[in-house]
């Protein structure tokens, strides 16, 4: 169950990304293109996703443990620092330039052609290198 449930959740997530149109990079870029032909779809996707999660957090707050046992996530970090800002700026730039964020890049991996594979390879390589590099730059920050 600990493996089957994530597999099904991942499938629902991937399916939702395709149904919502978020695997279409032009639609995502259209959302960010405020001064072009703005496409509000992403706002509906995020809004739709937040509704069930809002209630899930309420339920989680009244539970001691997850259904399969083990702890529920601890309260979120409240630290707002340089890492958060610089990371957000870098992510937003890459997201705007390509129209890809990590979820849709995975969901479209099988049908997105070589462009999607190139993006995925670069993203995973950077994720692999991120910890050691940020450890050097942001020592103590």
């Amino acid at each position, binding site marked *: 169950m600990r493996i089957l449930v994530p597999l099904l959740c991942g*499938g*629902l997530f991937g399916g939702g990304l395709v149904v919502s149109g978020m695997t*279409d990079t032009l639609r995502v870029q259209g959302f960010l293109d405020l001064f072009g032909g703005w496409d509000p779809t992403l706002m509906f*996707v995020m809004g739709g996703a937040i509704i069930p999660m809002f209630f899930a957090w309420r339920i989680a707050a009244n539970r001691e443990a997850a259904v399969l046992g083990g702890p529920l996530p601890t309260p979120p970090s409240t630290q707002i620092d340089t890492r958060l800002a610089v990371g957000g700026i870098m992510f937003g730039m890459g*997201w705007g330039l390509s129209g890809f964020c990590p979820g849709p890049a995975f*969901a479209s991996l099988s049908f*997105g052609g070589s462009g999607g594979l190139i993006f995925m390879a670069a993203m995973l390589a950077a994720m692999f290198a991120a910890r050691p590099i940020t450890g050097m730059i942001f020592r103590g920050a």
Partner: protein
Amino acid sequence: MEISWIYGLIGGLMIGCAAAVYLLVNGRIMGASGIAGSIVDGSAGSAWGERAAFLAGVIGVPAVASVFMDMPATNVTSNVPLLIVAGVLVGFGTRLGSGCTSGHGVCGMSRLSVRSIIATVIYIGAGVLVIIAARGMGVL
């Protein structure tokens, strides 16, 4: 375009339900960059199996569907250097900022986390500005 918001809402509800079940049943936060990043850099620890299964579902269900039906076009740019730069920025930035559209945007904002709301405003703002700049320079 006219009905795209309905599909957006339906797909969004699917994404939110997936995140809700993953949270309540497995006790984990559904952030795509955290799931993928912790697998590739080895920080997933005992959560490795659950996270790998999640990614297998994300990739696998659209892959199986693509056998039976036409999938929507991804319209990915054919500009290879741009894809590499963008991939590096997304990979590095999401690890540094501890989240992406699913982690900060969906899971964090629904928890009313101020940190996640600020992160989301920053990355959407950066995305808007980079589109303006790229259009100005003729890159997009």
